[in-house]
């Protein structure tokens, strides 16, 4: 029947289960429950393993069966898989109470451990020759182990590398670090390439050192956190504070004066030399200054051009009282001859009382009194 070891483990499992139940009923703390459930699962797994492996041993008094016992036909090699499966069981339990991702990770670990162990156990009985046996194992599992291992290795390298890059104190140092690393890789590559032979220990050692440096660098950088990435206020921020004036604001720094998407915009709007606003609609070659008609509830991409001889910005007031769009919008400062893109969406038609109350939709240019263009939204 059961060996002493198995009995011990089965007993411990039952005890752990009882403790879990009692703790659950009388205390119910989450952390304690997790610990006890984990212990129960781990002990049960170990008990199970023991029953299915060591219990195949013959009793110590049945001396005549020694020779034919399974354990006598060569010792099984060292195996990390029972440990892996135990780890998987704990991970699964942990995943049940924390995150699904951890649970799934545990399942994957469990599957991998079971398959590996199964194949290892089977291959060790494949023949009496140990070399042949390990070859059998390799032939079966390498097609799965190699790509999976490579993917995990690559993932670790990329992740560690990205942490280092994000952790470096500035953009410049990131660029320098990147260039230096790239140069070192290139130098080592050409060194290896130029040598007829290179000793295996040297290679392994080199790569091991590189891996250790990278992973520890990644860990340190990851714990340190990313460098601070500067955030700039946009024109929307200033528009909300009613600061879309003629003077320059911080949102105007490095303002782009050219636009990539020059075609297919809803309209082009010009601040002319004489201080008026004109517009041109697609499909219509004439420039007009009467009223620009734009559809409602539609992100209209407008090209805003400054043809005057001063840096200027356009401003438009939108109706208040609805979600989504800010009540005021403005461009950054547009240099003389520059152009910017402004995306405007009107949720309310221009005949709505709240829009009429403020004199309709209208583009204006701070600092240029005469500049005003009515926008009709039907």
């Amino acid at each position, binding site marked *: 029947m059961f060996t002493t070891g198995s009995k011990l483990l089965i007993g411990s499992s039952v005890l752990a289960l009882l403790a879990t139940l009692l703790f659950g009923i009388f205390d119910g703390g989450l952390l304690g429950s997790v610990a006890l459930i984990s212990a129960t699962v781990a002990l049960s797994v170990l008990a199970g393993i023991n029953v299915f492996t060591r219990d195949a041993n013959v009793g110590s008094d049945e001396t005549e069966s020694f020779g034919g016992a399974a354990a006598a036909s060569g010792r099984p090699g060292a195996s990390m898989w029972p440990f892996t499966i135990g780890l998987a069981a704990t991970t699964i339990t942990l995943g049940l109470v924390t995150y699904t991702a951890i649970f799934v990770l545990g399942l994957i670990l469990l599957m991998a451990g079971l398959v590996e162990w199964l194949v290892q156990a089977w291959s060790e009985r494949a023949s009496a020759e140990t070399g042949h046996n390990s070859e059998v194992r390799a032939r079966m599992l390498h097609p799965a182990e190699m790509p999976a291992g490579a993917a995990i290795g690559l993932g670790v390298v990329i992740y560690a590398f990205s942490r280092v890059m994000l952790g470096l104190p500035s953009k410049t140092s990131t660029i320098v670090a990147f260039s230096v690393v790239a140069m070192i890789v290139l130098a080592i590559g050409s060194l290896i390439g130029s040598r007829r032979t290179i000793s295996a220990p040297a290679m392994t050692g080199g790569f091991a050192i590189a891996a250790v440096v990278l992973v520890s660098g990644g860990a340190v950088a990851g714990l340190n956190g990313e460098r601070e990435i500067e955030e700039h206020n946009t024109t929307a921020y200033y528009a909300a504070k009613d600061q879309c004036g003629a003077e320059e604001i911080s949102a105007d720094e490095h303002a782009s004066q050219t636009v990539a998407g020059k075609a*297919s915009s809803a309209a082009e709007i010009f601040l002319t030399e004489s201080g008026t606003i004109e517009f041109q609609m697609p499909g219509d070659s004439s420039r007009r200054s009467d009223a620009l008609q734009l*559809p409602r509830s539609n992100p209209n991409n407008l090209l805003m051009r400054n043809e005057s001889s001063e840096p200027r910005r356009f401003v438009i007031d939108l109706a208040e009282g609805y*979600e989504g769009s800010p009540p005021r919008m403005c461009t950054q400062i547009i240099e003389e001859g520059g152009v910017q893109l402004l995306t405007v969406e009107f949720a*309310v038609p221009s005949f709505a009382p709240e829009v009429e109350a403020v004199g309709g939709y209208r583009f204006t240019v701070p600092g240029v009194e005469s500049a005003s263009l009515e926008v009709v939204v*039907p």
Partner: protein
Amino acid sequence: MITSRRLIAAFAATALLSSCASDAPQDTWKPAGENAQMIHDLQWPIFLVAGIVGVIVLAFIALIVVKFRDRGQAMPEQSHGKAWLEYLFIAIPAVILTTIAIPTVGVVMALADTDDTECIINVTGQQWWWEYDYPVSADGTICGFTPSVADASPIITSGQVVIPTGTKVLLRGTSRDVIHSYWIPRLNGKRDMVPGRVHYLRLQSETPGIYAGQCTEFCGLSHANMRMETIALEPADFQRWLDNELEPYAAPVDGSLAAEGEATYIAQCARCHQVNGLVDDRGTDDPSDDSLVVSYPDQFVYSGAAPNLTNLMGRNTFAGATYDLLTDECRADVWEADPSEFGDLYLEGVTEDCLNEIELREWLRNSPAKKPMYADPEMLTETDGKTRGMPYLALSEDQIDQLIAYLLERK
């Protein structure tokens, strides 16, 4: 063997039958305007050339299969390559393709030309209908016509776009949600309508009538129900249509069923659908209490828009031109009308006798059942509770009666 022969016969029969379908309003082989004519004049010679090449190739294959089939003869002499033949086989397609390319590029350029435009109409696609608006030009004209009212505002309509015959119309199109594609096969090729971009499509028709089309870029659940029609009217009829569209709002007679409908409309529909000029008197006689009813569909509909119903009965289809507002009989009268009578018939709009009440009632009763639109409130997490299309509104039959009476006067 027999099954494959049957299959071939079935294919041939289908091809033959579909090629001579008579009631095919979306037939690319029946151009009805200058632009479609250009495409047609290009496509049939290309089909001809392609057909001849196809027949020659197939005939050669058949010949070789029969002539050189395995009869147990000796292996023929093996040789490698024949330079002059290879050069010939490069030269022939090159000549054919060049011959085809020259007129093709010419037509592509001609169809992209916008300089000769006489009328501009904006079209905006959204799930699952098209909206049209007619901008007012600097000189106060709309589509090249002078409205009889002064200071006209832009016209907004949906489903059916009305154009004057013999006029070079330019559609300026975009989309409010996903990519749609505009195609009236008898008037021009198709053009994708892309959010944030404005694309052009020329339309022109010589003959008054209805030209059907449909969205040709998969755009969601009801893509197949996103149809559109172009209505071509003689210039004089177009002027009448224009003036009618711009007529001020006429409130229903006090105490009528339609007047009850107006109240129901304000309560149930006005938050999404605009009826121009509609005023809410808030149940009092005091005019200072009145307020203009303005819709705000951006808060309820994912695309941010719903059809303008000011002149609903002036068009004769609804819900993305998927359903008829006319009964079958009246519809046939209009759709099959002689071009000379078409204008009068179309401008009559939908009369009480001709109203396809069954389908309009079904629409008001439960629109998502009539046109799949994700209107299940449980499934609206992605759009912030906004519906794609018109939601189920749980109206009573009495309310529907009132609404039908009210809508019948919208023309």
